[in-house]
């Protein structure tokens, strides 16, 4: 069995697929990182970068959309996603060991605060399921802020060519383009609102994405320049912790909670309709 399957995977048809992926990869990497900086009156309003990985998926989608790729090729590429994501996971996990001293030194306040990252689900999941009636794409979009590690997790668990994959990829693109702008505004509002202490907001700024960390720390430092050092330390430590534990938090808590919440709400809502849930699970 193994030998026969191996031969199939090394057949001409599959080599055509590998070649296609190779070309997409080279083109995407050659385009490189494209930086956008939206400037108004000489002041940077917000900025974002589009990475090669985004071009890679866009080129693939465009090729598919213009019917240049057969459905057979799409199906052939599908299992490669869950498998190809493994090096990514190891690369992410390797930050745990070196970060361990920082985690131990931070103590339980910062560690406890990590559970705040589960707040992603509280607002978004009910709306996604009940208002937008998103189906299982809701799980992919809601369990995290959809950065690179989240894509890896969904790729492994559901595959990116699934409803959940659509959710996480859509949210990833949203975050890439709008993330810094959105967090810049949000952080300015809270910095002026006087609801939370600046230290608490600094910890909230560390959510595992470098650009979003910067965008949500800057307004805070501007509002409280006398606390700049502490704010940056809290934010950076919280960010390091999230980088180290995000993978595990998502896998052990966030995704199961989303699955459970989705089933609960989808059942209540769609009970009398012809099983929306079932249709999507096929």
């Amino acid at each position: 069995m193994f030998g026969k399957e191996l031969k199939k995977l090394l057949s001409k048809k599959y080599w055509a697929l590998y070649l296609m992926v190779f070309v997409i990869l080279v083109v995407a990497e050659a385009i490189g990182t494209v930086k956008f900086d939206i400037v108004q009156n000489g002041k940077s309003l917000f900025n974002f970068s589009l990475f090669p990985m985004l071009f890679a998926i866009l080129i693939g989608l465009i090729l598919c959309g213009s019917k240049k790729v057969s459905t057979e090729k799409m199906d052939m590429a599908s299992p490669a996603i869950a498998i190809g994501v493994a090096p990514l996971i190891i690369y992410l996990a390797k930050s745990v060991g070196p970060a361990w001293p920082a985690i131990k030194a931070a103590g339980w306040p910062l560690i406890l605060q990590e559970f705040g990252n589960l707040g992603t689900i509280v607002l978004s999941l009910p709306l996604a399921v009940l208002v937008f009636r998103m189906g299982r794409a809701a799980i992919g979009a809601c369990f995290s802020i959809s950065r690179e590690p989240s894509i890896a997790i969904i790729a492994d668990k559901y595959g990116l060519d699934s409803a959940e994959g659509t959710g996480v990829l859509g949210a990833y693109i949203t975050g890439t383009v709008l993330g810094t702008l959105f967090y810049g505004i949000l952080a300015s509002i809270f910095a002026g609102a006087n609801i939370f202490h600046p230290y608490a907001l600094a910890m909230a700024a560390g959510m595992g994405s470098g650009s979003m960390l910067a965008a949500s720390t800057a307004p805070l430092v501007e509002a409280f320049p006398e606390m700049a050092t502490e704010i940056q330390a809290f934010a950076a430590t919280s960010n390091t912790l999230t980088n180290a534990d995000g993978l595990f938090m998502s896998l052990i808590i966030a995704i199961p909670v989303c699955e459970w919440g989705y089933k609960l709400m989808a059942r209540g809502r769609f009970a009398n309709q012809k099983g929306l849930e079932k249709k999507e699970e096929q």
Partner: protein
Amino acid sequence: MAKEKKQKAPVDYGKLWAERLVFSVVCAILAAIANTIYGWRTKAAVMVWPWECWAALLYMLVIIFVSYALHDLLAKVLPFDVPGVLYLAVLGAVLSFPAIDVPLGGIFGLEGGLMATTFAKFYGLLPLCTPVLAFAGIASGKELKNFKQQGFAIVCIALLTFIGTYIGSAVIAQIVLNAQGVI
């Protein structure tokens, strides 16, 4: 991995391992190529050619296949479903501790640790993402209609997750810092 389980169909291990072997090697090689283009494009101080990554790729493949073997073996014993990626993450995390990594490196005459030295050949996370996303672009062609239909909803939901994590973290931080008397 989860897909086969959902249907509760008997797993075709021959097919599964053939796919794992071929796609892992293909993706690893492509990642090394992406890595080189990344270095060339960003005018990195040290140029890393794809073949110079061989040790990192080999080490990755060893970790990957050990995880797969653990996953398949334990799936038969454990009563609950453990995602394959968790084995990878835990194994990767454990091996990243200097207390383990440095002696492992010592075996091969690498002073800084096996993972620390070999993985340093990668410029970063981004080149590793590109091969997977290139495959995903092709495979997601089927989902194109979904994307178009749900685009607006997903944008709204993504922004809500941003608000959620920010407020959630701030609330817990505020409570804990208060309890500690820091603020």
